[in-house]
């Protein structure tokens, strides 16, 4: 049984009991507990099932390294799967459920995989499910998917809120243990602006549990005193519960702060993602203990020696009355001493080293603890928890020397510095053979923007374990030259397999990756099958690919692989360390960007009116424009048809504010616009408007719009709604980077003006009712503009038309846009005025054969394809795209060209369909000769109309093309003039 001891526990407050549940069972812990310590203290040793074999799983560690003890936490909108119990602080009312089992944790049908383990080796899925092909999709995949996976993905919207924040510092210290605090203090005393991030809720790291003296003080005293000093310094920021998740280019560090995990619903952000820019980073991230590979090392009750010691000292939790220690180094003896001090029994310490001397082993022996030299574990007994171990000689093949009954096993295979942060951005490692560890190579650090080292590793993260050396190192801020062993400790002896000559039967039971069920035998099999690269072996066996990302398994797996390949460990190398160090929440990554502020919606000054008058929205870039204004009980199609018919018969009102409006001004503005547009803009008379086209340097049509000559040296360029920022940037690019000696200024005035289109036969009457300006045909002819006051509002009125009707576009200051819109509505009441949306706009332009950027163009279409040759100046020596359009392919008469299409049966062609041609191409696909670019039901003509690009189209008027549609049906359409309505333009020019 694991139990809570009657006394002790440096982190718990026994006066504050907390209630929580596990699989519905009511349990109790204390403030200061983690979920793991509370579960273990409540005798919950079995916490989950492994991924592949569904083997029983209990706690292995006490921190971020924990591979097994993951649970679903919370309920409904706060449910989250795969929460690591060792790093989750207990809170009152926490609801937890175990994962990856069916039907229950204790009785799991999937455990049958366990008995079949010999038939489920590495690569099993790859090998088995190859053939027949159909079986994967219909048979194997559904079964595999049901049995695989850990926790259940939440189905409800996350009820919590998240945020991000930016931080800046000279020195960022990752890790608040002794090394980190000492480094922070040293840097702060030199005047640096310092940020210290500690991933847990406590300062000091392992030192208070491991013991020793620091500057003559106990670890707890030294930590308290150091913190007091630091807290008084204004140039240091301390953050607990904030993990340095990743180090990126130029000293960019992501910090993952957990603020309200233990107080769900208190209104604070649950997590905050810090985006910190640090001139230098100190990685003081500590080290992780490695497991040992012996048969049955995955049975619940087998734990890391350091983890077991943490439960005992920090939380007063006993994993069992009798604990066998198995180790290859001195550190594990601290666990034996701690167990003894707590009054628990250590039946034996199995030390793989042939001879053991030194202060810690001597201390254990002095307490009467059996220390067996040169011994290891042949086998662990027990199913859902440890019942005993068989002892063998480490040098042998596993013959059992004796059996020892026990409830727990504390294992230690040595320590691995946590080099993730160092490695994320290019820091290199060296193999420290005597201590069997990769540690940061100070000669090859990650470098920053200045090419200088941007990180330094200190303390255990640098392979420096002795407290005295850590302090010395921090004061120097340079890594200690010679790396001493921990104070008074004997060297460890690398042990990768226990016993070293273990036969296959034992290797099948030696776990490397506890969560993904990867064993020593799997890695050896991978090596035999030719997976010589560690990256390939990782993917083939899934070693280190579980949610713990191989924190416990990678070095051991690497050593096994190297041995199987007959090469030294550094020749095999490590897999890549990628951020984040441990999983971080999607919420933190999204930050504030969800719901209403997911993205910056752009609203015109009339947006609210649209919203309250039935607008069905259409996204146009980040703008929202009314697609149509639905009336009560009306469908979308009916609404659109009503708006078109009314505009053509009476008068319509369109919010055109989103159109881009860029002013180009200066002595060279005309010359510049002549380069930018295919047309000649420098000759446009003041007061006149001209439709213009812009192409990319590659010759393709990029944007279009009406250009207005405002004055002798200034033009106003209208762009498409989505194109304003892009075109303004395009203009500035050419002015700043190519023609920087041209005297031209630009300013993007898109948002300065609300723009309203008044369209239809009654448009002039409406403007006359508004009053203030002569808008007669004589005073304001087609394609001109004027300025003045309309309805008491400063206005610029353009006589332009995108519908073929008598039409005005009126620009007023955005702040008066709503007032002007209202004035129009009032004036239009007895003129049959109705607002219309973008769909009616599109239909009316299609009826007139006007092209739309993004419909008729797709980045491969040149103006010549669209019959817009008239808008390309023949007089100009140059314009952007001209050289490109001279290429042979661009001048090819076989290019598809714009035509109108009318179906023989009056139906509406589907959008984007292709016109068939005779024969098939090299791939056996039917040949094509054209495609539909715009297609609508025309309420004006009462039939389907379409525009399309067709090979030799303009020369083939009257020909009928076949358009196969979904379901194999062929729709026939006749090639016709793309101008379907009012070909002579009589309606707009009145």
């Amino acid at each position, binding site marked *: 049984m694991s139990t809570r001891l009657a006394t002790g526990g440096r982190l718990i407050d026994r006066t504050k009991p907390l209630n929580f549940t596990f699989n519905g069972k009511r349990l109790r812990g204390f403030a200061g507990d983690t979920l793991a310590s509370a579960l273990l203290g409540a005798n919950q040793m079995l916490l989950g099932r492994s991924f592949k074999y569904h083997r029983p799983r209990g706690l292995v560690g006490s921190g971020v390294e924990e591979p097994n003890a993951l649970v679903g936490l919370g309920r409904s909108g706060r449910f989250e799967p795969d929460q690591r119990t060792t790093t989750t602080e207990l809170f009152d009312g926490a609801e937890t459920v175990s994962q990856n089992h069916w039907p229950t944790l204790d009785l799991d049908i999937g455990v049958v995989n366990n008995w079949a383990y010999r038939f489920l080796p590495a690569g099993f899925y790859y090998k088995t499910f190859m053939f027949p092909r159909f079986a994967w999709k219909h048979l194997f995949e559904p079964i595999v998917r049901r049995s695989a996976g850990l926790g259940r993905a939440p189905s409800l919207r996350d009820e919590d*809120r998240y*945020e*991000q*924040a*930016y*931080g*800046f510092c000279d020195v960022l210290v990752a890790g608040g243990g002794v090394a980190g605090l000492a480094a922070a203090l040293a840097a702060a005393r030199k005047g640096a*602006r310092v940020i210290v991030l500690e991933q847990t809720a406590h300062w000091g790291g392992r030192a208070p549990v491991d013991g020793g003296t620091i500057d003559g003080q106990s670890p707890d005293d030294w930590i308290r005193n150091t913190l007091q000093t630091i807290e008084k310094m204004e140039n240091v*920021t301390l953050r607990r519960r904030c993990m340095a998740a990743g180090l990126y280019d130029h000293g960019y560090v992501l910090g993952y702060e957990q*603020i309200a995990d233990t107080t769900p619903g*208190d*209104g*604070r*952000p649950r997590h*905050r993602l810090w*985006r910190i*820019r640090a001139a230098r980073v100190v990685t003081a991230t500590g080290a992780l203990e490695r497991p040992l590979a012996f048969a049955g090392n995955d049975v619940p009750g087998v734990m890391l020696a350091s983890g077991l010691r943490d439960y005992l000292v920090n939380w007063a939790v006993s994993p069992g009355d009798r604990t066998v220690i198995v180790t290859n180094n001195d550190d594990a003896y601290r666990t034996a001493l701690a167990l003894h001090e707590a009054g628990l029994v250590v039946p034996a310490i199995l030390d793989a080293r042939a001879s053991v001397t030194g202060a810690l082993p001597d201390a254990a022996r002095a307490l009467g603890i059996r220390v067996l030299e040169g011994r290891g574990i042949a086998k662990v007994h027990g199913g859902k928890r440890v019942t005993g171990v068989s002892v063998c000689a480490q040098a042998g093949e596993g013959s059992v020397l004796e059996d020892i009954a026990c409830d727990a096993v504390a294992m230690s295979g040595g320590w691995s510095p946590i080099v993730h942060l160092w490695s994320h951005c290019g820091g290199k490692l060296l193999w420290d053979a005597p201590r069997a560890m990769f540690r940061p190579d100070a000669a090859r650090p990650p470098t920053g923007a200045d090419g200088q080292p941007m990180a330094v590793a200190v303390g255990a993260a640098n392979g420096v374990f002795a407290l005295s050396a850590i302090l010395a190192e921090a004061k120097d801020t340079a890594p200690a030259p010679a790396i001493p062993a921990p104070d008074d400790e004997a060297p460890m002896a690398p042990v990768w397999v226990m016993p070293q000559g273990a036969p296959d039967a034992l290797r099948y039971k030696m776990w490397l990756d506890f969560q993904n069920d990867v064993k020593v035998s799997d890695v050896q099999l991978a090596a035999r099958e030719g997976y010589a690269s560690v990256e390939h072996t990782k993917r083939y066996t899934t070693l280190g690919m579980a949610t713990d990302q191989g924190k416990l398994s990678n070095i051991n797996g690497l050593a096994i692989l190297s041995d199987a390949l007959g090469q030294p460990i550094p020749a095999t190398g490590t897999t890549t360390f990628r951020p984040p160090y441990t999983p971080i929440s999607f919420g933190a990554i999204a930050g*504030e*960007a969800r719901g*209403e*502020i997911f*993205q*910056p*919606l*752009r*609203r*015109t*000054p009339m947006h609210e009116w649209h919203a309250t008058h039935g607008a069905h929205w259409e996204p146009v870039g*980040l*703008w929202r424009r009314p697609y149509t204004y639905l009336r009560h009980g009306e469908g979308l199609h009916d609404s659109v048809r009503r708006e078109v018919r009314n505009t053509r018969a009476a008068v319509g009102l369109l919010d055109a504010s989103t159109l881009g409006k860029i*002013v180009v*001004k*200066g*002595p060279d503005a005309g010359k510049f616009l002549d380069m930018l547009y295919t047309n000649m803009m420098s000759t446009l008379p003041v007061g006149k408007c001209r439709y213009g086209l812009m192409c990319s340097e590659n010759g393709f049509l990029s944007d279009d719009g009406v250009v207005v000559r405002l004055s002798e040296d*200034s033009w106003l360029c209208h762009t498409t709604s989505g194109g304003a920022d892009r075109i303004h940037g395009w203009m500035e690019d050419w002015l700043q980077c190519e023609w920087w000696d041209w*005297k031209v*200024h*630009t*300013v993007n*005035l*898109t*948002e*300065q*003006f609300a723009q309203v289109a008044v369209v239809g036969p009654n448009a002039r009457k409406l403007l006359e009712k508004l009053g203030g300006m002569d808008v007669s045909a004589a005073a304001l002819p087609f394609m001109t503009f004027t300025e003045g006051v309309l*309805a*008491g*509002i*400063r206005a610029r009125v353009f006589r332009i038309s995108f519908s073929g009707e008598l039409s005005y576009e009126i620009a007023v*200051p*955005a*702040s*008066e846009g*709503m*007032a*002007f819109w209202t*004035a129009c509505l009032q004036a239009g009441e007895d003129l049959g005025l109705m607002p219309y949306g973008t769909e009616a706009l599109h239909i009316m332009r299609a009826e007139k054969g006007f092209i739309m950027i993004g419909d008729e163009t797709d980045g491969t279409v040149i103006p010549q394809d669209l019959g817009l040759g008239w808008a390309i100046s023949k007089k100009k020596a140059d314009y952007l795209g001209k050289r490109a359009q001279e290429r042979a392919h661009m001048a090819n008469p076989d290019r598809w060209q714009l035509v109108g299409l009318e179906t023989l049966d009056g139906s509406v062609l589907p959008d984007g369909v292709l016109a068939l041609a005779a024969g098939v191409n090299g791939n056996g696909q039917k040949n094509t000769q054209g495609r539909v670019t715009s297609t609508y039901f025309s309420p004006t003509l009462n039939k389907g109309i379409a525009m399309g690009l067709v090979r030799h189209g303009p020369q083939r008027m009257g020909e009928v093309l076949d358009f196969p549609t979904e379901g194999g049906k062929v729709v026939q359409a006749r090639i016709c003039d793309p101008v379907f309505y009012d070909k002579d333009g009589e309606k707009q020019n009145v």
Partner: protein
Amino acid sequence: MSDPVSALQGQTYDGFARITEAGLHGMITLRADLASKKLAKALKTQGFALPEPRRVMASGDRSALWMSPDELLLILPYDQAAPTVAALEGALAGEFVLVADVSDARALFRISGARAPEVLAKLCPVDFARLAPDEVRRTRAAQVAAALWCSAPDEFSLISFRSVAGYVMGVLEHSARPGSELTCA
């Protein structure tokens, strides 16, 4: 004349800092050779002083903000924008300058309180501790462009485009919620 309205018509939010959409202000974009003496004179006549790069020069109800090596933003009372544009255009006739009234293209926010920088530090990649007292910083506020500066003790001003005023108010509110302070009191 109708009554012009700002994008959010003075909406406010009280969190650990106070967020206010500050209503309509006159704003004039001036693109010119900023070293021109004629320009300095024309500005002076209108009550503006030429700021150093990345600085704001405020006097009374008028501020001139350096926006780029050839661009200033002039801020003044809303109803004075149009006549000031006309006056500047007159004074600078024949010069290579562009004067544009952008009063209606922008939204102006005030973020006030001792913790105002903490609100902005959640949205802008700006080192507020190292921002000079009269510095104008053009940057990004969450997903949109913004210009900000310290406009009074414990007060920052932020300018965004008008169309995204609702979004900017949204992210400012989100960042100023009580309980989400970045530092201890």
